[in-house]
């Protein structure tokens, strides 16, 4: 394959990053203050929470399922942990433990979802939908008033800054993405995980414990949603019952933009990071551009739509390039044959 084609294919296969780069450059030109250090930090920082949900959703999508409950776990996990620490067992839980409890609550909810889906065969949509509703209901009941102030350690991940005024949330999130990217690409667990999403029945027949993989998908998704909850609680310095409300739809958008598919077996964590960043960048630039507040929402929809169309065009271009290459090869081949005949 010629170098040029290789580069072209590489760009097409990582189109989300190409789109991001393009959108970025566009904004550098047209959007005031966009390319300032502070703003770039902001984009990353404000995408952090959503990116955790995108990753959660994306991983469940890789396994071929979906999880609606993540936006409720985002509020439920820190809510329960903090109620334990301040009301039910006051004084006996330190903030670090409290962070672990938050993650454990997320994991438990995921385990519950996973077991019902993998072992009892409940439809994942309905399972996670009822969980979405139930957990939100419980949070409304248990946390009628916001819980605040929170201990510094607990808000550290969401609020603290490090050198260069960079929020620690950014490296935390990046590391999580890199770890998952590595796991999926380079560990046996990750490969079994992806295989299960590619064809669950065939994976089962070939001896993979597919229900274990499904359960893991939901457990991981629950933990990541809890991480998102930690970041959100840290950012606003409190835990409120409406945290995360309405975020799940965009988590799908981010994951699909990042290459995931509801059919399973597709997508990579780094692609999903790209999807989350694109969403964050769209909303940031619309705000900086000063688009009429009532139009921001519609424009956001339109831009997502545009991204989808670009993705379709990519497919076409990709096939076209490969096709041309093939034709070239064939002609070349025939040329040779004719030459040989002429010689022979």
């Amino acid at each position: 394959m010629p170098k040029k084609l290789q580069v072209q294919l590489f760009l097409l296969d990582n189109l989300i990053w190409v789109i991001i780069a393009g959108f970025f450059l566009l904004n550098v030109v047209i959007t005031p203050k966009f390319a300032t250090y502070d703003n770039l930090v902001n984009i990353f920082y404000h995408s952090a929470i959503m990116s955790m949900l995108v990753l959660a959703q994306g991983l469940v999508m890789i396994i071929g399922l979906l999880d609606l409950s993540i936006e409720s776990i985002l509020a439920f996990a820190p809510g329960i942990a903090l109620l334990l620490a301040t009301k039910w067992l006051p004084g006996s839980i330190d903030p670090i433990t409290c962070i672990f409890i938050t993650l454990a609550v997320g994991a438990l909810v995921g385990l519950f979802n996973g077991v019902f889906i993998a072992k009892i065969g409940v439809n994942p949509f309905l399972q996670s939908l009822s969980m979405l509703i139930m957990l939100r209901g419980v949070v409304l009941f248990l946390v009628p008033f916001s819980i605040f102030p929170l201990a510094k350690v607990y808000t550290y991940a969401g609020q603290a800054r490090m050198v260069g005024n960079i929020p620690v949330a950014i490296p935390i999130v990046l590391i999580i993405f890199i770890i998952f990217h590595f796991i999926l690409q380079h560990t046996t667990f990750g490969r079994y995980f992806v295989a299960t999403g590619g064809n669950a029945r065939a994976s089962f027949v070939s001896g993979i414990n597919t229900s274990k993989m499904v359960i893991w998908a939901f457990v991981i998704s629950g933990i990541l949603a809890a991480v998102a909850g930690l970041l959100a609680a840290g950012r606003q310095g409190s835990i409120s019952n409406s945290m995360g409300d309405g975020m799940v739809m965009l988590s799908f958008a981010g994951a699909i933009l990042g290459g995931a598919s509801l059919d399973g077996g597709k997508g990579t964590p780094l692609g999903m990071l790209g999807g989350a960043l694109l969403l964050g960048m769209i909303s940031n630039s619309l705000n900086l551009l000063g688009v009429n507040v009532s139009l921001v929402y519609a424009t956001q929809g339109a831009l997502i739509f545009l991204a989808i169309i670009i993705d379709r065009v990519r497919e076409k271009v990709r096939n076209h390039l490969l096709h041309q290459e093939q034709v070239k090869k064939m002609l070349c081949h025939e040329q040779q044959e004719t030459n040989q005949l002429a010689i022979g």
Partner: protein
Amino acid sequence: QSEKKSETAGQDGKQLVFGMIIKDPTAPFIQAFINGAESKAKELGVKVDIKDGQADSLKIMELMDNFIVQKVDGFIMAGAVDLKAIVPGVKKLNEAGIPIMALDTSPEGGKVDMFLSFDIEQSSKKAAEAFVQGIKDRNGGEVPKGVVVEITGSLEDMFTQACTKGFRSVVDQYPQLTVVQGEGKWNNDDSNKRTSDLITRYGKEIKGIYVQTPDIMGAGVVTAIEAAGLNPKDYGITGICMGPEGLQLINEGKVLAIVEQPAFESAQLAVQYLYDLKNGKEIPKIGDTVTKDNALWSPAKVIENPWADEGAYMVLQGPLVPLEVKADNPLLWENKLSSLWKQENK
């Protein structure tokens, strides 16, 4: 005990039941409505059956129909997202002869026996005046040229529109100020993001940040300012509806002033008036002024309801905290209910 029961029963001797629908249970002021109504009901020996409207007009009308089937003795509408959309439900309640009290916002049609609230637009105006005063105080008595940020509630909510109107009626008098909006959607996450974005965009040009309702959007704005390495004090945040978080922020000096929403008391009054109506007692009429000792909402003028087709509007006072009333005043509902929200400090 039995004595109390007979005293508190309706005319026919059965316990009175009032239906109440809340907009949705997420915000603290809604919890204040719930607690206000329940405390009064307990005191009077009546029952309030409280339902969640889930911020959905259709849901609210379904619940109203249920109350009609249940033949409740009175009804309290505690806020709604869309005040025109629920009018058919209000009219049905009217036809069924069920008296109606409204809190927070008034249905824009039908008969509402009494609407009890501070005036959103007026209160926003008051907060906006304090906001401009803050700008002057920080700039040697002048209003300089610059940008002011307005963090709004959800756009589909009529409350938002009223807030904007009140705010603009003041700020628009200063043409050197440019208003930029960010949709905070009644939550701290969005208010935080929009504030960060706008701070990046306008930086030093920003002379102040107005938050329509700091009770549910203030904390996000404050953390955004602090995250940018700036001091909230320099932005003179004001708005209406305080809530526990707003109170805390005032105490920390991070918010300049907030107009108190008399949520708890308005719900108490609503239950009281329904009770009075059922027991053949008079409730205040248009033209009256209701006063009460030791009540922050007093004196309250009763005027004609400008939104509904028929009924009265009791305009409760919404004092500006901490300028008109100190933040530790025990009459503020945030302090009355502090046992419900104060955490063990550790």
